[in-house]
């Protein structure tokens, strides 16, 4: 084992070209992740032709680091423009943007950055220590278990909706409704397409997400631009004075890294929880990074304990926002490593990114499977080392990106708005190269603006659109597997357990809501 480890080290961290490739790929990943509409999967897919002339280790190094960076970078436009750069950031848009509006952009992104790095390392640890045992659990998941898992995932935004669970449920149902458009996998005919071939593919959630969050924010900014005087329309400026040394080194250290690091030192157990939850969800083929962020945000302890309140300038709301950002970022980063578990052990892709990775491995004459641990041990150890290297690289690159992104807030709103509009249409068009998606984005933008005025949360709509199709598919598949009997949903022990947990959470949430309502009514009368 030690021999393989040395060989792996000589293949990876002891090679200058690997470091250079990791550096370049990190910058590329930050870039793609920060552009709304371009996802981490797309970053990898666009990179595939380049892997043909790279050796396996550099190719994998590039993929691992670009994905880690892209998932973090999705937070940057979320904070600055309220457009999630990748769907993995959709779970905590409101929290990040709320902090940014208060001038706490550096705090929010610093927290996200540190948590991503630590989460990524936890994920790597899970992959290294128990990858092959855990992979066996993943093979136990049949459609019935996935049904309950998706239902659990869907419950998350309702659980985190503090003031009104019903409004969150309403938004979720809208998302689920939108997901039924088009031709699904389990039905012979298409639904709600009104004869349009473009609607056969359904309503894409990426253009919808850009519309709901990005375009609706453009509406609000325009309205604000009109009602406030121009001097006020500039957001709270970040302090950028001082010497070069101060701006380049001291400021990022003082404002971005240190506060987040101090806060995280109080949240060790929360980080470990988020990291393991993320890795566990990422490990399940068909779950993945986006859902990991949602579940972890729901598990986040909303009320901070007293000892974490070391910073008196933050309100309890800010504290809870920072905690959610931290938990969700840690989870989506560690899920990235989790996805590799079934891919390496069985060749079953954990998500669309590892599906591409398997393709690349096959191209290099490397067949994933249990044999890879014996036949290609240095390669496997190399991948482990790459995960660690990539996450450490994320720290300086991410910091640089936060600093550069910070300049966006200095652009006057009346110049920024047309540019944001441009990026919204490009992002919506890019994913499928279809103008139809641009129309979807516009409609969803108007919907988002109107819903927001009625205080209906937008995040659940996106989650409903992501999970609606799979949920229905798994349901129909389970039932037809059980010859039409609903018992099929709880026949298997694992499915029964998951179903029981889901039911318990729902009853608990409903009771809590009822109690709130009764006590509010009593106080009112």
């Amino acid at each position, binding site marked *: 084992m030690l021999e393989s480890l040395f060989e792996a080290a000589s293949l990876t961290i002891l090679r200058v070209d690997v470091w250079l490739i990791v550096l370049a790929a990190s910058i590329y990943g930050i870039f793609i992740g920060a552009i709304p509409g371009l996802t981490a999967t797309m970053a990898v897919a666009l990179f595939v032709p380049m892997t043909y002339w790279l050796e396996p280790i550099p190719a994998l190094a590039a993929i691992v680091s670009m994905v880690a960076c892209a998932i973090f970078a999705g937070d940057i436009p979320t904070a600055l423009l309220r457009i999630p750069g990748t769907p993995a950031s959709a779970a905590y848009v409101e929290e990040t943007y709320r902090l940014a509006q208060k001038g706490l952009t550096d705090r929010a992104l610093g927290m996200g950055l540190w948590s991503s790095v630590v989460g990524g390392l936890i994920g790597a640890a899970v992959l290294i220590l128990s990858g092959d045992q855990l992979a066996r659990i993943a093979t136990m*998941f049949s459609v019935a278990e996935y049904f309950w898992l998706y239902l659990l995932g869907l419950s998350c935004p309702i659980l985190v909706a503090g003031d009104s669970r019903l409004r969150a449920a309403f938004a979720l149902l809208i998302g689920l409704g939108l997901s039924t458009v088009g031709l699904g996998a389990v039905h012979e005919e298409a639904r709600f397409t009104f004869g349009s*071939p473009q609607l056969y593919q359904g309503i894409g959630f990426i253009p919808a997400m850009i519309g709901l969050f990005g375009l609706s924010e453009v509406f609000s900014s325009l309205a604000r631009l009109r009602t406030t005087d121009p001097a006020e329309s500039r957001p709270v400026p970040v302090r950028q004075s001082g010497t070069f040394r101060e701006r380049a080194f001291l400021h990022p250290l003082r404002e971005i890294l240190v506060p987040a690091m101090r806060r995280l030192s109080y949240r060790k157990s929360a980080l470990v929880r988020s990291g393991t939850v993320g890795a566990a969800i990422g490990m399940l083929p068909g779950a993945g990074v986006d859902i990991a962020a949602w579940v972890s945000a729901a598990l986040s302890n909303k009320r901070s304990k007293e000892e974490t309140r070391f910073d008196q300038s933050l309100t309890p709301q800010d504290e809870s926002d920072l905690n959610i950002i931290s938990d969700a970022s840690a989870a989506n980063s560690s899920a990235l490593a989790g996805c590799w578990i079934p891919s390496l052990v069985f060749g079953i892709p954990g998500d669309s990114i590892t599906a591409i990775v398997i393709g690349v491995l096959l191209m290099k004459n490397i067949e994933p499977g249990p044999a890879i641990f014996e036949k290609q041990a240095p390669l496997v150890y190399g991948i482990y080392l790459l995960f660690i290297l990539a996450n450490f690289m994320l720290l300086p690159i991410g910091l640089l990106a936060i600093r550069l992104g910070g300049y966006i807030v200095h652009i006057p709103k*009346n110049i920024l708005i*047309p540019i944001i*509009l*441009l990026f919204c249409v490009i992002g919506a*068009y*890019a994913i499928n190269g279809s103008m139809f998606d641009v*129309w979807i984005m516009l409609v969803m933008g108007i919907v988002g603006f109107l819903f927001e005025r009625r205080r209906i949360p937008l995040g659940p709509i996106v989650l409903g659109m992501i999970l609606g199709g799979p949920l229905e598919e798994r349901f129909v598949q389970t039932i037809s597997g059980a010859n039409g009997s609903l018992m099929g949903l709880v026949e298997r022990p694992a499915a029964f357990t998951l179903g029981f947990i889901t039911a318990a959470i729902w009853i608990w949430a409903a009771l809590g809501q009822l109690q709130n309502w009764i006590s509010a009514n009593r106080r009112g009368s």
Partner: protein
Amino acid sequence: MDKPLASYLHRSLILVALLTFSLTGCSRNDVYPSRPIELICPWPAGGGTDRLARQVAHQLEQELNVPVNVINAVGGNGVTGHTRGAFADPHGYSITLATVELNMLHWRGLTSLNPRDVEPLCLLNRDAAAIFVSNDSPYETIDDLEEKIREAPVPLKASGTSQGGVWHAAVVGWLIEQKISPSQLNWISIAGSTASLQELIAGGIDFACCSVPEASALLDAGKIRCLGVMGNPPASAISSKIPLFEESGISWKMGGWRGIVAPRNILPERRDRLCAALEKVCQSDEFATFMNRAGFDCSYAGPVEFSSMLKDWDCEFGEILNSDAFRSAQQPRFGPMFFPMIIGTGLLLSGMVLLLTKQFSQDANAIRLSPQVLMQLLIVPAWVVIYALVSPWLGFVLTSSILLITTMLILNVPWKTAIPVTLIMVPTVYHLFAVVLHVSLPWGWMGW
């Protein structure tokens, strides 16, 4: 402000147009190909078809000296991508990596699109269907399985793709050939072979049908076994121990194919140029190595041969998909309206409660929408609508320059700022997306 604004607007628009022209470079349309070609892939990024598409794009790019961008037009079991590819402008700048679904979707009544609507350019590969069981399954040979299907009191559960997909048709065709009633089969509609194989090892289904390369990782891992291949197995070494249907005396053959097609009315000289380039790609060593490593069976066929094959396959699939046996095998458990009904009821209920408890009330902090504010908000829909309608004709660069500059001027940005911003933004964005990243931007009749 009133008089200068109009003249500034006028002058600045011309200036911007000229400068963006010169910065992005003008392209002439009389040489083919002179601008990027889009290769439509009807399946998602990461799958086998996508991998093949990206390889073809990568090599075609070197052959034609223009960027070839893969576009994943995913959805509707392939309806979306194939339809888009067939009805694209026949100017030779969009081609499609078509798959076997082109032969099947129209028989299932999902679309009117059929192989006669496309111009076949070349066949890339054919993958024979194969039957897999999990490693701990009691069935050792294909005869065991057949026996069990014939006699089982409860239909056996199988999957591999969604209801009516190619692997479903392959299994039903095999059962018909062996005189077994397809009602003895309970086909679970699971999209994609990966998810079906996961279900197989989780114990949710009795057997799965898909191609050998799709299952090779799990085969190697010893998690599943192959009981038989319906046709010629891929030439790769791993498949040497894999039994064939014909070895058990079953003559049934079925499989999928992948090929490149163009819209039907493509100009003949451009079609020939593409065919020649594709032939070179397919005959190259690089392509052969790729196909071999990826486990695909490489079977190139030129346009003439490919189109006659397409016709034959179409008849074959028509026979299976229209047979009474196939139709009787499809019994949807829940109507397509079941799920929307539940959601609709939930929406109605929650909406009513929200209304009654006045939780739909407006946010107290929301900005009041006076008529002036509303007018200003109209900029956004107008912007998007103009972009969506105009950019396919005028191209990305001109449309976005004009839109950027007008919105900035409406929002009281001084033109001295607006023009430089546009001049920097548009060419940068164009180069970044179209040139560096190969992400598609709308193309106008003048090129970019």
